[in-house]
């Protein structure tokens, strides 16, 4: 490969770069020729399995199910709680109305008793107007 982009480097830098290049190549050739065993860790196997498409689809399915099921159960629980609260409110209202009706009946009953006793007292204590002239005549006759 030819080099078409030439930086203004002085000779020392060029020599240093050439030495560097040759050194890297010598090192690479030596390392490349050396046989080595590459150990595969268990974690690599685990992550490779975790990154497999089947595992990805399974995880996506679980996430989707969870994403749908959790909001549905939350909404359902809320609906049940609302219904229970409504029932309780209706029962409390009914009880309140019953108590109010009983109180009104008690008030009405008390008023009737008072009226009757008042009438009774009026009849017993006052003299009827129609007999008053007769009573005066009787008083005069007794006087003569």
């Amino acid at each position, binding site marked *: *490969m030819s080099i078409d982009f030439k*930086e203004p480097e002085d000779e020392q830098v060029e020599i*240093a*770069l050439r030495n560097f290049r040759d050194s*890297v190549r*010598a*090192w*690479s*050739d030596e390392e490349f020729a050396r046989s080595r065993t*590459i150990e595969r860790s268990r974690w690599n196997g685990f992550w490779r399995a975790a990154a497999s498409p089947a595992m990805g689809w399974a995880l996506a399915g679980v996430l989707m199910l969870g994403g749908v099921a959790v909001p549905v159960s939350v909404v359902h629980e809320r609906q049940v709680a609302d219904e229970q609260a409504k029932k309780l409110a209706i029962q409390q209202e009914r009880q309140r109305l019953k108590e109010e009706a009983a109180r009104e009946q008690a008030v009405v009953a008390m008023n009737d008793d008072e009226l009757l006793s008042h009438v009774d007292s009026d009849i017993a204590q006052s003299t009827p107007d129609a007999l008053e002239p007769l009573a005066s005549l009787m008083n005069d006759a007794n006087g003569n």
Partner: protein
Amino acid sequence: MATTVLESMGKLAVATVNGQDFAEAAAQYRPQIFRFLLASLRDPDAAETLTQDCLLKAHRNWGSFRGDSSVMTWLLRIAINLQKDHWRSRRMQFWKTTNSNSVDADDASQWLPSLASSPEQQVVARDQIRLVWQAVKGLSERQRTVFMLRHVEEMEIHEIANAIGLSEGTVKAHLSRAMVRVRAELGGKR
């Protein structure tokens, strides 16, 4: 003109890919991929593992390779991406730093070119190589990749741009910054 040359290179690559068995291509380019990864990672075991991964990936996608670039550029692009993933995972696995097999710059500079024959030349060459490694250590990941492709693999700027997926101007900028660092390292010692 440059586009025409690139297009003709691509067509040539298609013909070569169609005619060439994968095993043949792998055997031909494997040493170069290993060398690039070794120079970038300074870890022979990691370089070997990533070379295997690179060839495995290439084998899986061999049928879909359209030949827009040469086989070597395509393989290097895969290797560069694997190297990026490697560095990313190393950063995440900070607790594994003690298990790293990275060779120190001083040890890496022990490999001398055959040109340096006399003891004096060897000492000077070793010192220069150590300083270049020292500078390379301070480069960013992208600068290091560009520097290695340019000065170890001796690739052209447009080939590097094609392999990394950057514009030629950006590659030149990265290379220029890398060279400033190398010169500073070498200059400080002279």
